[in-house]
């Protein structure tokens, strides 16, 4: 096996590992931001497309989750893109149980009272266990701004 072939193979292995390890984290983050399952799936998928496309410049020895989440946030905050996707429409393959749908609609409605930043802030800190400093950097806000967002999110959920 040539050196180039071996390197390419190593990247593919690292990429697949990133899929196994982080896919669900990326999807959940996208879902927290958008509160929309279909959009979240698209965003997560596209983040991995971007990762693969940048494979020659990515440092595969460092943790990739931060890269994926920042990319997802950037994609998610591109409002124009999200809107265009809505216009185009996207077929979905996932099916839910009736109970699952009803529970999700209730939870989604409650989470819908929060802004994207508030949802992402409370999911990342309360459910994903990320630190405030890490989350603030990831979301492009200050530590104070993040604490305020988490606080507002809790208040809104209490009133939901």
């Amino acid at each position, binding site marked *: 096996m040539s050196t180039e072939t071996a390197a390419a193979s190593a990247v593919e292995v690292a990429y697949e590992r990133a899929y196994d390890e982080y896919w669900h984290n990326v999807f959940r983050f996208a879902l927290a931001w958008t509160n929309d399952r279909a959009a979240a799936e698209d965003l997560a998928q596209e983040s991995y497309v971007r990762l693969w496309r940048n494979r020659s410049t990515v440092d595969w020895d460092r943790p990739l989750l931060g890269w994926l989440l920042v990319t997802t946030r950037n*994609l998610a905050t591109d409002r124009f893109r999200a809107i265009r996707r*809505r216009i185009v429409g996207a077929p979905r393959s996932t099916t839910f149980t009736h109970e699952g749908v009803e529970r999700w609609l209730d939870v989604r409605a409650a989470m*819908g009272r929060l802004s994207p930043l508030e949802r992402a802030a409370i999911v990342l800190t309360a*459910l994903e266990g990320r630190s405030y400093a*890490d989350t603030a950097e990831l979301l492009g806000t200050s530590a104070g701004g993040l604490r305020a967002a988490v606080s507002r999110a809790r208040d809104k959920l209490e009133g*939901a």
Partner: protein
Amino acid sequence: MERSRADKILADWDELTRTVLRPGLPTRTTLTTALSGSMLAGVAVLIIAFAAASVWLGLSRGTGMTGPSVSPTEPSPTGTDGPTASPSGSPTEDFDLAGTAWRVTTLDDQALPAEGAPWFDFDSFGRPGGHGFTGCDEFGFGGTFEGGKGSAGELILSPAGCSGPAAPLEKLFLDTFRVVDAWSVDGDQLTLFGSKGQIVLARELPPVGDAGRALADTLRTAEWQILEATGVAGLDRVSPVQFFDRRLLGVGACGYSGDVQFGSGGSLTISDVGWDTSGCGEPDGRSALQAVLESVAAGRSEEGGTVRLSGSGVDLVLGRVWGPLAVIPPQDGADTARTEGTLRITDTCVFLEERGGAVLLLWPADRTTWDAEQRTITFANFDGTTATVADGQPVVLGGGGGSSAESGVTSGAWVAGMTWVAPPVDGCPLDPYWGVGDVRD
């Protein structure tokens, strides 16, 4: 201990996203196989699979992050031998291409008729990339165009394929566009330079001096709140709108977008309005508003800074979004006195810090622009210069002011007696005040 309502919702969210809501992984074999082959074809396959084939809008610039030592931006895969005629020291390097639209006029030294010529527009908000039409297929690009240097990046084509008379033109355009590495703007002409030649494009707007261009330039300078729309209630819940060369975009929750075509003489058409309902449910009256938007046929500026778009039986009035500014109707010759201090822009007020006191600033509507994203104020002085100022900046202001101590009129009384485009909100310092007539930073 009983869980709080918030904790219960979060626990449900956590469980549902791990179980019933969890989507399956996309097929990794398909993904990696597709991407390992021809990058263009591979990504196109994915884009088709993700049902987003016809649109490709680029990735926004990355921010500070932990993790890998590469920012999540597009690579520049062109690998060309350099431009054939790169402009040097071009005064147009600062031209902001965001949201602008262009149609090819000359390709490989051949003049093209406007009808059927390729066109594209750049994404709004300065993000890299854009999308357009080759004359046959839709395409997207993910590159960057900054500081006179350009890269179309990766091109994504819609899946239709091109055949017949349009095919050679599409191929020539894409081959040339793909290796662009420099650009310049001269008036309404954009020239792209690359190893395969030049592409000359014209701005997709009416010419300067036309009423339609004036309308477009006015609408592009600000965010607008929809103040009135025939038969539509609840407009205060509709997001402000921004206009670009070919598009409009409602910014914020429950956003919306549409295609815009500015025509000569102030004519205007809006089409393909769509709503982003994620996270906000169904906005009240959106169908009615969509119908009004898609019915307007012309627009004109009105006294007081509003813009009226009209069509058959419909009117839609747009007012600038002024943010925290207190705004008054246009004033003449208000630059006779001077004051100086530090500009303060809060979420709700704009005032001057002067010798420890706060002076409310009143801004004339016709010469003031509020940039909500940058939180800056741009002011057009009577001498033709402009000044853009931000919070914390020392400024020298021309104009004239007053105070209750001088006039004997209480602050509440003078506020009530003024004609406002946008009055100061409760809690802003009202006394003394200064009508801004000139700004120097």
